[in-house]
């Protein structure tokens, strides 16, 4: 423990800016994954334990697209769309069979897919770690803000995630599709009786959640090395975020992700060996005080 360092950091704007920015970046990637988890749980009632594997797929799709086209834009699109399409197929063929089943069956189907996908990635791309490298467009010196440093790529990444969050909120809150989705989350049968193909809605939602994870994987590819099993950590983190924010709440996932990011960023300064424990402790506290999460509605 080194609380002096923490206090020092808080008294220097450079440190605060830098650590806040790093907390945001960490949080934003987790948010991209967690928003899919929370969306899928909120609408489909499924805890998608395979979501980390989708993040991994996104990274590998992006890497491959980047090697082929040398364009980061194409890579991100490939990561998001490729993973989204995979998600739709996965939902139709497998997840749709465990709707309404107990959480245990859902867990097993997802776990089976984690095993299969990790292995498939190893078979296709090999077991070595792969790195995309920073695209030319972002190979710029970091921006200086109030004495703190913010790399342009991270600024882009944060903007991308925030834009995703806003787009997601707009899609769910303002469009007819979003209204249908929220209605289906409450009463799927009634939505179907009104002439809406709920299977399609479910597949699209799962695909959307998968695409978000895929985009996160693609965005992570320039700065994190891709390996089979890379989805493991972020899955756990996005679960923590989802639980803290409230299962089913996009806003909750956003706030939860920033919270976890900040704990990590400032925890490294003040209590480097305990940050992980602190995040779990926080999840426990939230569950005990407000089981539905900070933004969750009780009784769902």
């Amino acid at each position, binding site marked *: 423990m080194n609380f002096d360092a923490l206090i020092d950091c808080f008294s220097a704007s450079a440190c605060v800016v830098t650590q806040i920015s790093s907390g945001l970046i960490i949080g934003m990637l987790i948010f991209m994954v967690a928003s899919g988890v929370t969306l899928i749980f909120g609408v489909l009632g499924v805890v998608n334990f395979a979501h980390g594997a989708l993040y991994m797929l996104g990274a590998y799709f992006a890497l491959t697209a980047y090697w082929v086209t040398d364009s980061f834009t194409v890579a991100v699109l490939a990561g998001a769309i490729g993973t989204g399409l995979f998600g739709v197929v996965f939902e139709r063929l497998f997840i749709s069979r465990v709707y309404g089943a107990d959480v245990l069956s859902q867990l097993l189907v997802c776990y089976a897919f984690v095993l299969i996908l990790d292995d498939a990635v190893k078979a296709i791309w090999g077991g070595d770690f792969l790195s995309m490298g920073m695209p030319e467009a972002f190979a710029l010196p970091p921006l200086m803000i109030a004495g703190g440093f913010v790399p342009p790529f991270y600024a882009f990444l944060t903007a991308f995630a925030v834009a995703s969050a806003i787009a997601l909120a707009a899609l769910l809150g303002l469009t007819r599709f979003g*209204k249908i989705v929220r*209605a289906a989350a409450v009463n799927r049968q*009634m*939505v179907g009786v009104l002439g809406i193909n709920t299977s399609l809605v479910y597949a699209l939602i799962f695909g959307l959640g998968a695409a978000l994870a895929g985009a996160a994987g693609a965005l992570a590819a320039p700065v994190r090395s891709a390996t089979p099993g890379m989805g493991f950590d972020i899955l756990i983190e996005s679960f923590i975020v989802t639980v803290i924010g409230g299962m089913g709440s996009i806003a909750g996932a956003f706030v939860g992700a920033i919270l976890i990011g900040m704990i990590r960023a400032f925890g490294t300064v003040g209590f480097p060996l305990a940050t992980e424990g602190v995040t779990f402790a926080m999840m426990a506290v939230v569950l005990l005080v407000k089981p539905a999460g900070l933004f969750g509605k009780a009784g769902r």
Partner: protein
Amino acid sequence: MSDELRVQGMDVYYGASQILFGIDLAVERGATVALLGRNGAGKSTTFKAIAGVAPPRAGRVFMREQDITGFAPYRIARRGIGYVPEDRQVFPEHSVEDNLRIGAKPGTDGAVHWTLERIFEVFPILSSMRGRMAGRLSGGEQQMLTIARTLMGNPDVILLDEPSEGLAPIIVQQIARLIATLRKEGVTILLAEQNMHFCIAVATSVAIIDKGQIVYRGSIEELKHNDDIKRRYLAV
């Protein structure tokens, strides 16, 4: 006139137990048919089976002479069958207007007879509450909303499951008037009821269901004078 909706020899099971036994029903275009029966006689199950929510294990369902047996609920809805379930089932956290918009789709002929404006003309009470959360409405208002929401889908046939249940007499009257209006609009109606008097007020013909079987079919006039049937199958 041809049958708008026809059900032939329909058996429905919940799990291992059979609920409906060889149901035959026919609803002519433009008619208002009442399905009368006591609690638990099988009225709701019949509706659910037609709507595709509880698919029949045997028998057939025809909509305008086209076989729609076993279709998913949304495809049945798109064939022009609007279903208003008995327990209302509004989307409680959506506004009245959003509830209506979710139900909106063109009819089988591609036309939109029911716009928001027309709905608000026919249901003035909903107009004044268009921004309110549906879960905050009273029971009668919710009933109005469910019917209106189904109308937004421009159905050819509307299945109304006990629309008067549990509502104050004044609201029941409003609903009866509404049904009369719909009939004038040319909407074919299949109505499930326990309340015979309500049916007499609105229906053109009647079928009585008991223990999962149709036990009587006839016009409203005949039923009015058949005390035996009324005593045996209806809580009169």
